[in-house]
């Protein structure tokens, strides 16, 4: 039983494993925004990201009993969605850059600041898409999702020095692309 606030991850996991499938809705609502943002940055496509995250969440539900640390559910979910993203990238043919990352059509009523921001986001996203999947993943987990290297290691299964190297290389590659466009 909980108080006014939403139930903890561990409580939700217990409820779902106890047969209350609807309680999984808490998990979806709590984490989908972050997972969608992560997957969108990884795949460069909102539609593909929605597919990857939806698949990941269904998989998480079906394998929830294997989540050994319900208090670290977030890490476990990111690990699943990371793998879904890798599967999507592996299926995608080389050079196949999704079209829906063209700069969003800005409403002329938007201020100039909004238009420039949209263009800049598109530029940065293109730069990110140009990174190898490993570097992209490392950069997004570190700088977009704000995870520590320890959390990243738990998600990816990679050693921290490896992750640091990927993040460093990603920063350098990104910076070069951004500078080349100015």
């Amino acid at each position, binding site marked *: *039983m*909980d*108080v*006014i606030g939403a*139930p903890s991850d561990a409580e939700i996991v217990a*409820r779902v494993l*106890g*047969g*209350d*499938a*609807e*309680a*999984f*809705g808490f998990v*979806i*609502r709590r984490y*989908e*925004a972050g997972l*969608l*943002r992560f997957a*969108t*940055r990884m795949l460069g496509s*909102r539609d593909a*990201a*929605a597919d990857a*995250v*939806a698949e990941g*969440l*269904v998989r998480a*539900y*079906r394998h929830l009993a294997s989540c050994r640390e319900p208090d670290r559910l977030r890490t476990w979910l990111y690990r699943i969605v990371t793998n879904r993203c890798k599967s999507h990238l592996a299926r995608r043919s080389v050079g196949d850059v999704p079209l829906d990352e063209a700069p969003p059509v800005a409403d002329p009523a938007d201020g100039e600041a909004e238009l420039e*921001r949209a263009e*800049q*986001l598109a530029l*940065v*996203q293109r*730069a*990110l898409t140009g990174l190898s999947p490993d570097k992209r993943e490392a*950069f*997004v987990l570190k*700088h*977009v*999702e*704000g995870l520590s*290297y320890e959390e990243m290691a738990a998600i990816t299964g990679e050693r921290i020095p490896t992750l*640091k190297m990927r*993040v*460093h*290389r990603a*920063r*350098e*590659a*990104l*910076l*070069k692309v*951004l500078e080349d466009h100015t």
Partner: protein
Amino acid sequence: MNTIDPRIHQVLDGELAVDALPAELRDATEAIRAAADLLAAPVPVRSLESRVMAEIHRPAPSLARRVSAWLATPHAITFRVRPVWSLAFAAAAAVLTLFYARDVGPQLGEHEGIAQFVGRFPDARSVHVVGTFNDWRPGTIALQDLDNDGVWTATVVLPAGTYEYMFVVDGERWVPDHLADRLVADDFGRENSVVIVRPVHR
């Protein structure tokens, strides 16, 4: 390879203060941070909840038998079906849900209970209950006074837990539930009533 000064990496990894960087290196640091900030903006995508829940509830492989059994089983009112392929199921489920709801009421989940709200408002035109169970949205849970004796009631299925609430009379007058066992200050100069909903099934 565009190798950058390692101090930039140290700052971005939180191992060095940005003040320790010479000015010419701070631009690059800020550019990375600005790019990350742009990427960290929320992505406007429709919620996946209905899609995921529909997939979770989707019948398993032996489709014909599962479908006929599913159609014959009453489902909870909150069951949601969204994808186009399942519109036929949604229609059938909606019909069955209405049919069964008249006979046995909503099917309570294992962690759900019932909260009964009662208040005496003889001259009221409408009474609603508003609280943490409906994000304090007025107008969503109406009490009824079916026999016009001034006693308004509502019986609501809620997940087990603790909730704060008040009554709203005629859409404008906020009143605590004087029959509630528990009250707590609302930090706005009033008191909220408190209900603890216990699971019906144990």
